[in-house]
Structures are given as C-alpha cells and as structure tokens.
C-alpha cells in the first residue's frame, strides 16, 4: 500500500504537483471559507487594543488601528488572488491571441507585433500603472488593467516562441496539404500543441503577479488606505517595525505562501507534461 501511495502521489514526476495542490487547497479554504469564520470587519478601528503582539485571541496580533491583523490578511487574500487571477486571465487571453497571430502569420505582421511586445517589455511596469491609475483613478479594477496592460506582452513573447516551433513541425504543412482552413489549423493543430506549455507559463506567473499587485499598493498606486490589501498593510506597518513588526511580517508571509503554492503548482504541471521525464525504452 505504501508503495502505491508513494508512487502515485510522490513519484518523481508528481511530487511538486501534489504539494502545490495541497497548499492551494489550504489557501482556497482560507480565502473562501475564512471570511465567514473570522468575520470581524477588517476596516473597523478599535483604538483600545492597538499593537497587541500575536496571542491566542489575535493570532497575528493587532495593527496600529487596533484591527485584528489575521482577519485583515484573510479578507485581503481574495482581493490579491482575485486581482492576480483576473490579470493572468486577461493578460493570457490577449497574449495568446497576439502570440499565435504573430507566430502563425509571420513576416511583417510578426515583426510589427513583436516590436510592440518589446516596447511593452522594456517599459517599466510602475510607470504604466501610474499613468493608468492616474487617469482612471485608483481602485482594484484599474489595478487589474494596469497590470494586465504589461503582463500580456510577457505571454505574447512566450506563446509566439511555442507557435513558431509548431509552425516548423512536419505535421503543419501536412495539415495544409489535406485542405484544412487556416482557422481549423489554429484551433486543431496549433492550440492543442501549445496549450500545455501555456498553462504552465500562466500558473507560474500568478505568483509574480500577486507580488506585482502588492508592490503597486505598497507604492500607493493600487488599493487605497482602509482596504486590507497585503501590499498596503505592509506599507502601513513600516513605521511600527520596531515595536510591532508583526503588522508588516504577517501579510508578507501570506503573500509569500500564496505565491509559493501557485509556483509549486506551475512547476508541478510542468513536470507532468515534460516528455523527458517519461521513462522510455528505445528498442531498436
């Protein structure tokens, strides 16, 4: 039995994936069910017990406004993760389209699109966020637009590389020879052959996007003061780092743990679809 479980879950290829799943389940629990259990209002101030160290009652202690840090971290979770998933979703959608069009069309279209992508990649994300948030005003929806506006170029570049490798394959001219229309080739030949890699790229980017969102808020460009956004909380706790370090440390740990589990998931999926890891017997 032990061998069964060990090989099924922790075999060489599946270990990262399994740990990733376990962490994600924990996060999902805290994010979805958490707010119902720790349902104190994350923004209500309670000056009576400011800066209490972590205790049985306040697991992560309280911040300078007396609010329970643990509750704020929980309610901040669905904010950060929600933003990140939205950004990855929108960014990936645009990126995949641009990547496939550039790879499939080639020639002038490819050159132009790739120059635009390079412009976006060499443009500091902070500035773009500033401009977008500056004109449209702060707030999570605008934060999503600000992040997605930069992230799509990252996906486009990687999807184009994958598409080109499919375009150079032997089965592509064959698909044209049998008479497939361009659309059918894209959806039946290119997409299925790159989707594996794309999922890995997308999952691996959720972590960094969470961190990018937090950095934006840290710099005061994303979510605004009362909201329990992790970046904001870390910035808020900066002044009290000497006497109440937990205000800064706690949301940081939450961000790290969330990013860590998504990265594990991404690497795990990568291992699963990686052809090299499948044992082969070259019998010739």
């Amino acid at each position: 039995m032990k061998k069964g479980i060990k090989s099924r879950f922790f075999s060489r290829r599946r270990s990262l994936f399994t740990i990733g799943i376990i962490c994600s389940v924990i996060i999902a629990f805290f994010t979805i069910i958490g707010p119902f259990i720790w349902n104190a209002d994350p923004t209500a101030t309670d000056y009576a017990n400011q800066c209490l160290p972590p205790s049985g009652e306040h697991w992560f202690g309280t911040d300078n406004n007396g609010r329970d840090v643990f509750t704020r971290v929980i309610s901040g979770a669905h904010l950060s993760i929600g933003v990140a998933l939205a950004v990855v979703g929108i960014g990936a959608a645009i990126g995949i389209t641009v990547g496939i069009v550039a790879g499939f069309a080639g020639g002038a279209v490819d050159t132009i699109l790739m120059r635009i992508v390079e412009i976006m990649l060499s443009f500091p994300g902070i500035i773009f966020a500033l401009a977008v948030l500056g004109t449209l005003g702060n707030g999570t929806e605008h934060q999503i637009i600000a992040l997605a506006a930069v992230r799509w170029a990252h996906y486009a570049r990687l999807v184009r590389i994958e598409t080109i490798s499919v375009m150079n394959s032997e089965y592509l001219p064959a698909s044209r020879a049998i008479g497939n229309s361009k659309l059918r080739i894209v959806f039946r030949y290119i997409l299925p052959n790159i989707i594996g890699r794309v999922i890995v790229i997308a999952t691996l980017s959720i972590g960094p996007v969470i961190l990018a969102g937090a950095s934006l808020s840290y710099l005061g460009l994303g979510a605004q003061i009362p909201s329990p956004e992790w970046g904001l909380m870390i910035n808020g706790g900066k002044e009290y780092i000497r006497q109440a370090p937990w205000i800064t440390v706690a949301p940081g740990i939450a961000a790290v743990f969330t990013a860590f589990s998504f990265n594990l998931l991404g690497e795990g999926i990568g291992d699963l679809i990686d052809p090299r890891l499948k044992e082969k017997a070259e019998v010739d």
Partner: protein
Amino acid sequence: MLEFKNVTKQYRSGMFGTHLTKAVDDVSFCVGENERLGLLGESGCGKSTIAQLAMKLLKPSKGSIEYNGKNIKHMSRSEMKNYRKNVQIIFQNPQQVFNPRMKFRETISEPVRIYNLASSPEEEKKIISEHMEMFGLPEELFDRYPQEISGGQAQRIAIMRILMLKPEIIIADEPTTMLDVSVQAQILELLKEVMDKNNITLIFVSHDLDVVRAMCKRIMVIKDGQVVEQGSVDDIFDRPENEYTRMLVDSLKE
C-alpha cells in the same frame, strides 16, 4: 492535367543576403491522365521542392504551375479547395506527419469532414470502416497517437486518408525511404494496387532507382534543380544519353 511552366525557386542566403541558391531552376513538364512520372535525383537536387511547389506549400519565384489550364496561384478559395481535393501528397516521415495531440479517430475522419463527403455520421462511419478493412488496419488504431504506431502503419493510414478523397493526382515524396525493406515492399505494393484500381496519376519522387523503375513509366532525372534528361523507363536505364544519368545508373548496377 498538371503543368509546370519554367518554374524556378530560389533562396537568399549568405552574409548580406546577396548569395542566391536556386533549388529549382527553370523546370517545365506536364503530367497527363493516369500517368506514372518518376522524379529521380540525389538528395538535395530539388526534387522534393518540386513536389512542395505542386502542393502550393511553396510559392515559385518565377514561372507558373497550372492545373487543367488554370494557374494555381490565382485560384479562388473554392477552386483551391477542389485543387486540394484532387492533388494529394504522401510525405517522407510518416510518424511526424500527424498531429501528435490528435488521436487517429479524428485524424482519419478529418478528410471526410473537410470535404463533407458524408451526409450523416453513420455514412461517415461506413466510409471509414470500409477503407480501414481495405487497408488491413485494425479498429483499435482509432485511440492511438502517432508516436504509438510503426512507420508502416502510419504510411498506410496516410494513403488511406488520401484515397478517401478520390484524388486525380498523388504526389509521393520518397514515401518509403524511412521504412524498412519489407515494409517498403508492402507500401509500394499497396500504392500500385490503389493507383491501378482508381486510375490515379502518380508523381513519384525518389533517389532509389529500383523503386522508381518498379513504380513509374516515365522518368525525369534531376541534378541541381534542373531536368537533365527525360524519357521512358527503358530509355533511361538502358540507353541513357546524359552522362550524369549514366553515372547514376551505373553506380546502381555495380
């Protein structure tokens, strides 16, 4: 039916893109009904390029290719679809020619769907199973992926797929080079049988003289993108005029 008129295909390369290499240099020939034309030459002489030009997978740099008098370059979508249906190609590496993520169930039914040869799913199933028996392929292949079957079986499936379209012309681009001798014999036997039964025109590209001699009636010898000699099988093998052809034929007889 299919005619090449002074077709040239050249590539730019070298330091500043000045160096021109001519893969196909001013080739003209035509293929009539039920003909068996062999394109014979060493590897790298441009014979495969001619095959890809005919399939419109490559665009000619000069000259034109005409099918029933119509230049394939200016064909409308519907004309092009008809051209694709009538002119099909068998590739060299059978296992690499199929979509690795697509099971054979879908790969095999693809031609039927594209040209909607079957009015209803039952009819589609009938056509497919008919062809499967004719080619001696087991039903359990449906759930297999290209990497999971042998070269011989893959080539059989490729030929079967093409045959469903009942094409007028089949271009075979070195279909048996990558296969073992015994499997090669099976595929060539199968191809010959299919050709004769449906009187399909064949353009057979190869570097193997014996195979060409067995499959074709007329042969064109190609060297560095140019047709150096053209004639019936016997002329070429017994009375080669061009000295390159003589060298090629003698090197076989040694």
